[in-house]
């Protein structure tokens, strides 16, 4: 797997200490590493070229503060510029029109439009208290319409019933009428995935756009998308007056350089990111986190924020103190951590937000989201003393606990191993200086030791 920028740079950086200003020469090597990092993150080459030029202009002549190396300072500039390009700040969804506010979804096959349509509906219902109608114009892919119907039911919103044999345009017109009659405030229109080179299909969606006059036309792009993202975005932006971008499948481990390419090309803001297959897995976009991710610095900030949202504050603080001390982290805390993880969307959502070095450590701890419930059960069967001092757990006690929670002794053992691994990871995080890392990320500099 790829080295992240952090580890790449540590090789270069050491050689260049003690310089006071960034010069064409002392940033050269780092620039090359940054270019490679961006390529490996799938940022499109033409975008990289322009971007590097911009970074160079900003960087040369800048002072190198304190004991930093020029490499550090340059990465600071890179990170900052990435944030500037990706929007500077988050961009809100626009619904200011006579209802129904139509949102049109467009993108390639497999990008995630259908799931995202349902997620967006849920988000609008919950966050903006809107009455939403879901409409599918995908008459091509087998069962696509049915898929959206099922999702609509799951989130308990209205679905426009399509008549057999209706064309996408006919569906659009009828749905608009339906939405007016039933007082829907928002109407989300899912469309078939299409190739940017498929003229007929591109014409079709541009006709849909004319018919529907959407207030938002969102381009849905897969965060795994490669170099071609830039060309595809260009064609879609020419065919449709795009108003924003949704980046999907960010819960995967792709670095998501396509986000930068698409934004660079269209000049449109990324409005949401998809972070889980679950229908709650849609979030607003934060350029600073994405910048860190593209550079391979993890999404530590996102993690912090999410923790704040979902975790009970007091409990979290208690836990934080334990983590800090590295000691005293007992099975009760372990259980609490499990519960909190569940609140935060499960282990996988969490892992995806850790910086690379930790997420690897975390990968080793095989925490199956579905096992969480059983884990709690096992810990609940322990006495308070056992929870605080797991060392006392010998065979007979384990047997009792297993019987009490309806699992095998092996499972109890497995849990204990996991606990120990977690404890170790906590210590590691602590040694690495979580706090220091945060500071690094919040400021302009990445947390490079």
């Amino acid at each position: 797997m790829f080295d992240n920028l952090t580890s790449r740079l540590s090789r270069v950086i050491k050689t260049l200490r003690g310089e006071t200003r960034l010069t064409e020469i002392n940033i050269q090597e780092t620039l090359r590493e940054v270019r490679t990092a961006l390529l490996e993150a799938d940022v499109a080459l033409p975008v990289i070229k322009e971007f590097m030029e911009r970074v160079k202009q900003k960087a040369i002549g800048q002072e190198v503060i304190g004991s930093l190396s020029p490499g550090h300072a340059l990465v600071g500039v890179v990170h900052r510029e990435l944030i500037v390009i990706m929007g500077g700040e988050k961009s809100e969804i626009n619904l200011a029109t006579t209802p129904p506010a139509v949102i049109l979804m467009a993108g390639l096959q497999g990008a995630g439009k259908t799931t995202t349509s349902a997620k967006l509906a849920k988000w609008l219902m919950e966050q903006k208290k809107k009455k939403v109608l879901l409409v599918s114009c995908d008459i091509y892919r087998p069962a696509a319409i049915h898929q959206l119907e099922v999702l609509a039911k799951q989130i308990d919103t209205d679905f426009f019933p399509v008549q057999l044999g209706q064309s996408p345009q006919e569906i659009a017109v009828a749905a608009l009428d339906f939405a007016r009659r039933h007082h829907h405030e928002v109407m989300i229109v899912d469309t078939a995935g299409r190739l940017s080179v498929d003229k007929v299909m591109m014409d079709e969606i541009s006709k849909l756009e004319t018919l529907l006059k959407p207030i938002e036309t969102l381009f849905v792009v897969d965060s795994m998308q490669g170099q071609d993202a830039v060309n595809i975005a260009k064609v879609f932006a020419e065919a449709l007056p795009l108003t924003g971008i949704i980046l999907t499948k960010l819960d995967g481990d792709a670095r998501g350089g396509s986000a930068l390419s698409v934004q660079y090309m269209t000049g449109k803001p990324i409005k949401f990111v998809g972070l889980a297959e679950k229908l709650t897995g849609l979030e607003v976009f934060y350029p600073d986190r994405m910048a860190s991710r593209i550079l391979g610095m993890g999404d530590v900030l996102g993690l912090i924020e999410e923790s704040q949202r979902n975790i009970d504050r007091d409990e979290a603080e208690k836990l934080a103190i334990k983590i800090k001390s590295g000691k005293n982290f007992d099975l009760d805390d372990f259980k609490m951590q499990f519960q909190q993880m569940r609140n935060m969307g499960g282990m996988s959502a969490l892992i995806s937000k850790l910086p690379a070095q930790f997420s690897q450590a975390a990968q080793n701890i095989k925490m199956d989201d579905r096992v969480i419930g059983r884990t709690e059960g096992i810990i609940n069967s322990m006495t308070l003393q056992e929870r605080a001092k797991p060392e006392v757990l010998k065979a007979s006690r384990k047997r009792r606990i297993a019987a009490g929670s309806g699992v095998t002794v092996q499972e109890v053992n497995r849990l204990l191993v996991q606990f120990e691994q977690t404890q170790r990871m906590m210590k590691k995080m602590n040694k690495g200086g979580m706090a220091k890392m945060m500071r690094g990320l919040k400021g302009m500099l990445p947390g490079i030791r």
Partner: protein
Amino acid sequence: MVAKIMTKNWISEIKLGLSQTRESFGKHLSSLLGGGKIDEVLYEELEAILLTADAGVNATTWLLDALRKKVKSENLTDAAQLRGALQEVLFALLAPLARSFDTDTEKPFVIMLAGVNGAGKTTSIGKLAHYFQSQGKSVLLAAGDTFRAAAREQLIAWGERNNVPVIAQDSSQKNGDPASVIFDAINAAKARNIDIVLADTAGRLATQLHLMEEIKKIKRVIAKAKQGAPHEVLLVLDANIGQNAINQVEAFDNALKITGLVVTKLDGTAKGGIIAAIAKIRQDNTLPLYFIGMGENINDLKPFDARKFVEALFD
């Protein structure tokens, strides 16, 4: 076997499928390699073409190094000569990927498909069913995606198109068990004396650890239905994805020991350089790329042939 069914039209079909790719990648190359000096500027432009084709830093570096060596050893001086040299170097890289797909060894021959969300698993199954039927084999489909909404209906639609049986759990059941659906399908295939079982699975990302555990379990259960099965575990990759393809290959291989690859959506503008990146992962012992998908229709799937693929890219 494969050679026999491959129509004479293969090359023209693949050319058609890859026309978009050739349009950008090939044209670009042709203009670059029309003639002139072989110099650093030329190499740099070549590098750009390969990188923008998603070949990745590793494969690109390897290809350019190989090319430089060739230029030296064969005393090439004109850019036009580079064209043939590049074709050869590309072929050398891709050739190990091409291997024939033999389903005669077992009956039923069980093929399991895996991949990330939206990669093209279900569609590929629809096309593979057609492909095997045209070889005179009987086929049965197993609706192992019990998770995604309407995934079952999607596969059933492909079953109808191909006129082959589909084993699925009944629709009233929520959150079914994929392993048992496939298990039943294999038994059904035995009972009906069917040659090939194609098992669909739900899309999953390698970071979804519980889903990766689930798919391991599916594989284990398949082995219980028939010893030695699944006989092939194919990872489906979307040609549009970038360097994450490499992570995907490694993660799915770690979980499942995949036996081969299917690359889909090559009819788009993606240049398919990801195939080169994949070839470079373990160059001595690369995974076979059995099939490539080039459209949404039932016959838009072809066995991968490195020579023809490279040829189709260029002219």
